[in-house]
């Protein structure tokens, strides 16, 4: 357990601290206003990453999260333009997010289609529907009494309201993943859906619920996005799914499922937000920023592999430790217990 913690999460933490220490050297980094902006700028990405985490733990993916955000933003704009009250729009938009999530869920769970293919499809579909709603138009003039929740910090501190919401959601996901029985079953599904099913876990029901949750969180993210920029457009958050997936992978979550922690993803998010901000302040161009993020991602996949042999020396070899990690019928219990308790 300790050995595992010493691996990727530690590297991440060092990276994160490193970014913020190095940031101190850049003019204007350590100011309260800048820290607020840095946190705020990643609030939507964080919500999408927290939506993705449990799905990736089960070995599935949802690439439609940013398009769901875009559709919900366009819907917010359309309804607001039509004169509906904002108080009515909020629940409707969250409901819309859940409906979009359920379309994914039906295709993936009921029809057993691969989630990668389905959500690449709905990535295009939902973005397209957003354009059907709003076209090239932008709707603005959202209520000034609600906008501060997406733009301002709590009573003069550096902590934005939106980040508080992200923290609450993050803690909620952490409890779900690391404390509850459902959380335990996510790892079991990720390590082997068949085994999990035979162990009495209601695999389909769990997966279905995760996609509904994903849709709902994307809708919440869309409300923050729309209010923050005071602009509802069909192209809002275009491409953000890749940033969210990157945060999840950088956070040490295995793309094959069965491994990963909320703490890891949260640290990765903070490190990415800090890094982006520092690079901006140092006038590093967008292209170079992408190069750096790309290298970090490769590193995140590489390091656990490089560190693996050392671990097998410390502990007796278990079937589940053999690479690739999942063999049909392997005893996944040991790994499962370890990962689940790993936080």
């Amino acid at each position, binding site marked *: 357990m300790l050995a595992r913690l010493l691996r990727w999460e530690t590297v991440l933490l060092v990276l994160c601290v490193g970014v913020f220490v190095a940031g101190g050297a850049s*003019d204007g980094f350590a100011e309260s206003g800048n820290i607020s902006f840095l946190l705020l700028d990643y609030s939507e990405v964080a919500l999408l990453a927290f939506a993705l985490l449990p799905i990736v733990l089960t070995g599935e993916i949802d690439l439609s999260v940013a398009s769901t955000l875009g559709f919900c933003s366009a819907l917010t704009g359309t309804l607001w333009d039509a004169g509906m009250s904002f108080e009515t729009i909020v629940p409707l938009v969250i409901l819309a997010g859940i409906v979009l999530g359920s379309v994914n869920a039906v295709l993936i769970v009921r029809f057993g289609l691969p989630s990668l293919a389905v959500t690449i499809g709905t990535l295009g579909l939902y973005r397209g529907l957003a354009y059907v709603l709003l076209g090239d138009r932008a709707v603005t003039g959202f209520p000034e009494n609600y906008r501060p929740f997406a733009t301002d910090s709590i009573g003069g501190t550096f902590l934005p309201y939106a980040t508080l919401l992200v923290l609450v959601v993050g803690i909620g996901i952490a409890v779900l993943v690391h404390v509850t029985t459902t959380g335990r079953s996510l790892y079991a599904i990720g390590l082997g859906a068949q085994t999990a099913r035979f162990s009495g876990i209601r695999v389909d029901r769990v997966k279905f619920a995760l996609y509904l949750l994903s849709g709902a969180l994307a809708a919440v993210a869309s409300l923050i996005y729309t209010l923050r920029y005071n602009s509802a457009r069909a192209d809002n958050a275009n491409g953000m799914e890749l940033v969210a997936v990157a945060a999840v992978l950088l956070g040490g979550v295995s793309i094959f499922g069965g491994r990963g922690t909320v703490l890891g993803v949260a640290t990765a998010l903070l490190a990415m937000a800090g890094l982006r901000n520092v690079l901006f302040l140092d006038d590093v161009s967008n292209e170079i920023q992408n190069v750096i993020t790309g290298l970090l991602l490769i590193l995140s996949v590489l390091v656990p592999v490089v560190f693996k042999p050392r671990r097998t020396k410390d502990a007796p070899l278990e079937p589940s430790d053999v690479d690739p990690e999942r063999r049909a019928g392997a005893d996944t219990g040991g790994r499962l217990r370890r990962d689940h308790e790993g936080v």
Partner: protein
Amino acid sequence: MAGCGGTTKGSEDAAGDGGGNATEQKADPNAKIKEGLEITFLPKEIDNPYEVLVDEGGIDAVSELKGTGKEVGPSDASASSQVSYINTLIQQKADAIVIAANDPNAVAPALKDAMSKGIAVVTYDSDAAPDARQIFVNQADSEEIGRSQVKLMSDQIGGAGKIAILSATPNATNQNTWIEFMKDELTKPEYSKVELVKIAYGDDDDQKSFQEAQGLLQSIPDLKGIISPTTVGISAAARYISSSPYKGKVKLTGLGTPNQMRQFVKDGTVTEFALWNPVELGYLAGYAAAALASGQISGAEGETLKAGKLGEREIGKNGEIILGPPTNFNADNIDDFDF
């Protein structure tokens, strides 16, 4: 369901008024331009060749004024990607931001924040919400563009005959505004013999524009000329006409860049076309930003901006400065321009 006691569009809570111009200080027309000003140009996207030219002009202007000019910007033209850059410039305590807004509203809160911290904000090419900037440097007056295109065409076809327009997309704001002014200009008595028979849309797609040009010429046998007020449309149409039997018989004009159109002017396909000079647009925006940051102007109507080699420009309504009439390019002068 709508508006039952809640917050709706247009209700008082939703007024969305940012409190007007945040930096309403007095301007001193005799103030000297400060040295060492840091002025940053933030285009719609960093790799757009047109914007690169504009910003080169701007950086030149800042250098003339002994300041430091630089260009930063996103690699995609999405609505929100400019906001991170604005925040960065606030933290870097830039003296002025010159921005071509991708979304007039999405950048507004960040720009207001910049102005409240004493940073001068100028928009160019594409405006932001008027209360989120001090000056908008407009490339050319829409009315002037529309009317001058009709004159260019009429001069080339001897003031009589059928003409058509090859535009961008059916809902392109710029083009539609220009076309309205063209139609209005055509109602004047001196154009009574010029007849606008069709408006075609090439969607700013090279191939579609090419096919539309072909379609116009084949379906209207006595067509005398085409006006294409878009750089994509005019070059595609020129390519078609130059290799067709219509070359030299049907006139083509519109808005294009000299580099795109050079070969068609030289081979006689095109006599004369127009565009504002993007380098001068950036240059003017650079001077406006420096003058604002030095307190020489405040962006109020009626003030005069001294803009180096461009001479003086008066600030119009809503803090708008107009670069001037578009430049006409023909065989005589096209080699003087490289953009």
